[in-house]
């Protein structure tokens, strides 16, 4: 949630800066939000530079939320695939109800 919200606000932030609105309460408030999001943006990145290109060549962070154990396509013990069925039923409930109402009205 934090990251997606930050991406949306990044456009607003850039517009404020581009438009000369640096010394405004809104820019300062957005900077305060941004600083909070950066608390754990700590780590090392390796890059390969080649003829105008920047190629990612490794990243390490003690704070990374990426977990190979969870994301793996191999066997894992933390993620129960059967949990997805209930999640999708609830997440898709509004879509299902809309379709049922549409179908009922189409018959009238």
């Amino acid at each position, binding site marked *: *949630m*934090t*990251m*997606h919200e*930050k*991406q949306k*606000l*990044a*456009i607003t*932030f*850039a*517009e404020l*800066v*581009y*438009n*000369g*609105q*640096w*010394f405004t309460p809104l820019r300062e408030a*957005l*900077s305060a939000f*941004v*600083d909070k*999001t*950066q*608390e*754990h*943006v*700590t*780590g*090392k*990145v*390796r*890059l*390969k*530079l*080649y*003829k*105008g*290109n*920047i*190629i*990612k*060549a490794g*990243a390490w*962070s003690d*704070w*990374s*939320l*990426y977990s190979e154990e969870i994301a793996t396509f191999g066997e894992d013990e933390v993620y129960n695939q059967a949990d997805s069925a209930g999640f999708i039923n609830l997440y898709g409930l509004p879509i299902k109800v809309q379709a049922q109402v549409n179908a009922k009205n189409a018959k009238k």
Partner: protein
Amino acid sequence: MDKKSIKKVVLAYSGGLDTSIIIPWLKENYNNCEVIAVSGNVGQADELEGLEEKALKTGASKLYVLDLTDEYVNEYIMPCLKAGAIYEDYLLGTSHARPCIAKGLAEIAIKEGADAICHGCTGKGNDQVRFELTLKHFCPDMPIIAPWREWDIKSREEEIEYAEAHNVPLKINRETNYSKDKNLWHLSHEGLDLEDTGNEPLYEKAGFLEMGIAPTQAPDTPTYITIDFEQGVPVALNDKKMTAKEIILELNKIGGANGIGLLDIVENRLVGMKCTLYSRLPAEQFSTALTSILKHSALTR
């Protein structure tokens, strides 16, 4: 503004064509006023050489050169980097230098008890807005003089004629006379052949690129680098602890040598028009690549 009350003017001065001719113009049009020139150093190092002599020769009573480089990096560039503030296609270059310079300008104007602040921004661009909004914040009642919105000069050609008629020393080469803006974060070019979007920028032409070489001229073997970040700010390059400013300067060199950081765009100006711009931002391109890797790791969806 009562023109007759203007006796002392603080001028945002770069030593370029616009701000050079503004000094005699101010004296001619504002009661032979005292003109105090102020240059904010945001990393345009080579442009500052011989500046004092030039300012005094052109008629200024003195020149302040403010070293704003650390403030610019830490209080303007870094917040934009952390925000990932990308305007249309790029992480901004001129925009965040303007409030930094204008703040310095306002402080000098207040200290000197100036009657007005003058800048050389044209009436067609964004920078007049950026300068003046910052000035309104720091000295809300200070009159602002913007000669481009007042005088009869209509083009750079006429500016050169005015300069020659007023014995203003110039280093103008009409063929490479792009309108440039340089700081330690970027170098932009506008004007001349770049105004026609059908023209390819002359990256390979000797003397065109100032911060490195074209990708087609870059080495055949890749260069590897590492950068360490702490709380969104770069703190080490190739395992060597450095300030963010030092890292930017070093990345400009390494990136420039590998053809990194070319940008050729059409962008939407605040004042309504679209403009073409060629920009060189080696360090900026690293930052976006870096932060995209790290922020994905450290932030929840």
